[in-house]
Each structure stands twice: as C-alpha cells, then as structure tokens.
C-alpha cells in the first residue's frame, strides 16, 4: 500500500509540475548587475490579495479579496498554517460570497511519526503514519447567488491526510473528509433549510508551489452527501465540485506580486450545473 501511494504520488507530481523542483515559497531577494535589490522568491500564501477575472464565455466579471497569512515552523515538528481572513468574492451578475475565517493546518514531522505520551513513566507510543495529518476549518460564510438563493455557512471542518508530506508550505496532496453545517433559503428567511454534512464529504486536493514560489497549481475535487432538513421534509442531496487553477507571477511592483490566474471550476447539485472558466489578474501586498 505504501509503495503504491508513493508511486502514485510521484506520477501525479511528474504530470502536474512537469519536473519542477519541489521547492517551497520563500522570501528570496537577489541583486542585479547594478546592485539593485529585487525580490524573486514569493509566498503567495502570505499577501493581501485583490483579484479581478472574467469568464470569456459569458463576459461575467469576478472580483475577490482576501487577507492571507502563512506561518510555518522551521525545525522539529512543523505546523504549516495557512490563514485566510475576510475572503470575499463578487460577480457582475449580483452574486457574492464572504468568509470570515478559513484556515488550513498541516502537521509535518521528519519521520512521519505521531508520538502519543500515555504515561509519564512509560515510553510514549510512536505511530508511524503514511501521511501527515491536518485540519481545515471555515467559519462564518455567507453566499448569495443571482437567483436570490442564499446560504450561511455556520461552520465547516475537515480532517486531512497529506500524502506528499512536503517540508515546506504550499505543497500537499491531501485526502479529506469532514462535516459542515449551513443554512440555506430563497429570498426570505421564512423557509430556512438546515443543511448538514455529517462526515459524508470526501475530497482530494493537490497544491504545488514551485518556481521560487512564483507559480502555484491547485486541483481540488470533492463530493458531499448532504442532509437537507426543511420544515416539513428531510432529504439527501449530493454536491459535486471540482476546481483547477494555475497562478503565476509575471510582474512585481515594489516587490508586490502581480499574477495571472487561470481557473476552471464545476459544481453540480440537485438543481443545477455551474461551469466557470475565468482568466484574470491578482495583485497582492506581501504580508510575510
């Protein structure tokens, strides 16, 4: 099983990164021939982000905002923490969404072990895991679609198994499962539906940061089996979502990165299919 996972991981990375070196984001500054400093290494997980993109098929414009903060320990057991505050998105058709806080926490140990001290006198229990463990949480989400459909995400939490086990942040291959609770409705708040996902969501995420942090590839797929509780009925529904994006820094203004973003997304639930293909620009103010 372990060998299978490693072979699968190696093949996946070879396809996605085309041989790019698995280096993590870092603040790297060089000097040119005239002695001027220029930053060439970036951490796209640490920035105050403003973005605008357009879907060429429909002409719909999208705008986004987020405050991203990435923390990581450099020695021993590493916790790679990605925080996103005040995420917001809006489009020109009147849809919008916002999330108060979104965090991804990945634990990485050098030998892949988990040490559990059961007793002060006995040796601790050491469990060797094939994957790093992690968590993802989202709190306080609000979304509204142009059709007057709204949702309020009270909380969402996922357990992640990161099979990449990269030492640096910004790169992982994670299998996830988790739970969520949200409220949904149409126009008025009179007919509120309670949508519960009781550990019935599975997903696979691949994120790779390379080229001194100047390029990021992200592929996500998830299937949620959700219980929808209305006033007079309870039903189950599926939500399938898939998303792939590439972001590359093409310019830096006063060492603030300007990047190109190409994104492809697909959502399918009981009512509709939504396909989104956008290309746009992101401007970030580094926070590292």
């Amino acid at each position, binding site marked *: 099983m372990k060998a299978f996972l490693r072979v699968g991981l190696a093949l996946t990375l070879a396809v996605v990164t085309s041989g790019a070196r698995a280096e993590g984001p870092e603040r790297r500054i060089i000097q040119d021939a005239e002695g001027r400093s220029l930053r060439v290494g970036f951490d796209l997980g640490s920035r105050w982000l403003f973005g605008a993109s357009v879907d060429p098929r429909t002409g719909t414009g999208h705008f986004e905002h987020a405050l991203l903060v990435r923390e990581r320990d450099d020695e021993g057991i590493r916790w790679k923490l990605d925080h996103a505050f005040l995420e917001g998105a809006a489009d020109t058709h009147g849809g919008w969404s916002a999330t108060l806080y979104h965090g991804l926490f990945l634990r990485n140990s050098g030998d892949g072990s988990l040490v559990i001290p059961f007793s002060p006198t006995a040796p601790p229990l050491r469990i060797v895991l094939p994957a790093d463990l992690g968590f993802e949480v989202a709190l306080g989400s609000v979304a509204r679609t142009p059709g007057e459909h709204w949702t309020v995400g009270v909380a969402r939490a996922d357990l992640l198994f990161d099979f990449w086990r990269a030492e640096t942040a910004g790169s992982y291959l994670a299998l996830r499962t988790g739970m969520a609770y949200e409220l949904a409705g149409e126009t008025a708040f009179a007919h509120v539906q309670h949508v519960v996902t009781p550990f019935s969501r599975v997903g696979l995420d691949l994120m790779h940061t390379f080229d001194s942090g100047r390029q990021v590839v992200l592929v996500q797929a998830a299937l949620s089996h959700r219980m929808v509780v209305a006033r007079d009925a309870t039903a189950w529904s599926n939500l399938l979502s898939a998303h792939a994006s590439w972001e590359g820094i*093409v310019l830096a203004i006063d*060492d603030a990165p300007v990047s190109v973003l190409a994104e492809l997304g697909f959502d399918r639930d009981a009512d509709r299919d939504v396909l989104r293909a956008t290309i746009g620009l992101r401007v970030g103010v580094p926070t590292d």
Partner: protein
Amino acid sequence: MGQAPVRLLVTLAALACATSRGRAEAPTDLGPSAVEAPPPGFYRDAEGREFQVQFDLNQRFWLGLGYRHTFFEDQTDGGGLALDLGFRVDTLSVDTRKKTRWRILELDLAPSTNGRLRLDASLMRFDTSTLGDRPFLALTTFIGGPARHDLYLQGGWWMDLLGVELREHRHADPSRALRLRYAALGAHWDLWQDADMTSFVRVRVGGAIDSRMVDDEVAKLSLTPLAALEGEFCFDDAGFHRLSMSAAAELELAPLASADLDPRWRFDQRLAYEVIALAIDDQPISLRLEGRATRRDGIDGGDASGWELAAEASLRVSLWAPPRDLAARDAARRLRSGHADAPISPSGSPR
C-alpha cells in the same frame, strides 16, 4: 492685424535675438588678464562698467502693456489694449531636488474690445515639484528572467487661492458674468524637466471650488474638476528666450447648487514666447507674443458658447530678475547624471 505691426514685431524680435546672442557670448571674450571677474551673470565692458547679462524671469515682478486682437464666437473681431502684471518667485532647494513656484497677484486685463471686458486675476498660485531620489516604483518582470525596471516620480502638488474671472459684454443681456474661484488643489506629474526644473512639461489635475454669478443673480457654488498639460522652456543660459504653453480643460459641476446649473465646459489653450530685448538699470524689458484659444460655455455675459481666438503682442518691464543660478543648475546636473550636459529624463537616466 495689418502687415505694418507684424513687420514691426518681427524686427523687434530679430533685434532682441541678436542682442541676447551678443550678450550671452560676450563674457567669453574676457581674457585671463581680467583683474577681477565680475559676479556671475554680470559683464564688465572695456570701460569697467558692470551690467547684468543673465536674467531669471522666474523671479520677478512684471508689468506688461500690449495690444490684443480677438476673434469672438459671433464672427466679430476687434482689438484693444491689454495689461498684465504679476509677481513670481521660484526657489530650488539646497539638494536641488525640490522646486517651488509662487505666483502672486497676477492680473490680466483687456478693458475694451468691441464693448467687451476681460479680466482674470488671482491672489496666489503655488506649486512644488519634487524629484525622488528613490524609485517611485520598482518593477520586476519575470518573463525571460527576473529584471528590475525603476520608475522615478517627478511631480508634486499645486494650489490656487482666490481667482477672479470677469466677462462683460455691454451689448448683451445679461451683460456680466463673474466667477470666483475660492480655492483649487491638485497634483501634477512632470513628464520631463531639466536639471534645475526651470524647463518642464507636466500634467496637472485637480479640482476647484467656484461660484458663478450672472449680472446680479445670487452666486451658485460649483465644483470644478480640471486637467491641464503645461510646459515652460528656457532655451539659453542667459535666460533670454522663454516659451510657455498650456492646454487646460475644466468642467463646472453644481452638486451643491440648484439643478438649473448645467455642467459647463471651459477650455483654455495658450502659447507664448518671450524674449528680452534690452535692460534699463539691469531691469529687463521683454517682448512677448501670445496666442490663445478659449471657450467658456455660458460665461460671456449670458449663455453664449463658442471659441475666442486672440493674439497679443506686449512689452513687459521686469523688476528684480536676478541672474540665473547656473551653479545650482550645474550641481544638479552632476548630482543626477554625472554627465554635465545631460538633462534628466523621467526615468532618472541621462538622456
């Protein structure tokens, strides 16, 4: 305009050019045997008399009198006397990176042209230009390998205080329009300037708070965004030849007034050339030629709109006008480029 005045102006201009050229070159005739060198900007003749041969017309009080011929929007034209005066002081900081320009008590008056009066005046106009010693923006491109490209900011801000614009047309009804500009404020970006920022080309944007009154009507407050492309050029070290130009557009809006005040455009284009012809007691007298094209919607007494074209020739008497500080100019050149004769381009590199 008849041919005789034109011939006269051309003759005067040619005379002034020849005079200035002679003066500017004269100091080089002084040999090393001179007992004591005259102060910078002065020349000592064979009889030992010292007189000023360089002038800084950006530091002076001037009084000008001339003839202005105007072509009005109603297909009429006429000429008359024009008077202008003002006080200007330009200062350059010690590190030569900041230029401040003051214009105080400027007046431009054409009292009677075909029954029309034109008056423009301002209490104070101020602007300051700064040449950044650090890049305003450092651009790094990553296509084809990291490379840095620096952009330097040359610019500053400007402010006008209390301007008056009066237009009267005795044969129109209503006959008088008065605009008061209480204050205007904005920023400018210098597209190009020479080492000591005497010559420049810049874009100026900003806004003004105005009020407009037609005849005895109650004044209406308005907000006026404006933009202009401006340039001043001094062509020689002696400061004899100057060219100035501006192209400005304003849109008078009335967010604070009643709805019956429609937005009104105002355009003002000017091109002027000034050359020093002679000096009396080291106070230069210059010939100035100016062409202007203006359009002020609804300001000519009533609601008339249209272009006015004017040509003017005048003589200006300038008081003060000290010699140009060429030492500071040369120091600025050395500081910025390391090439003595290279003006500074907006990118900060020698041209």
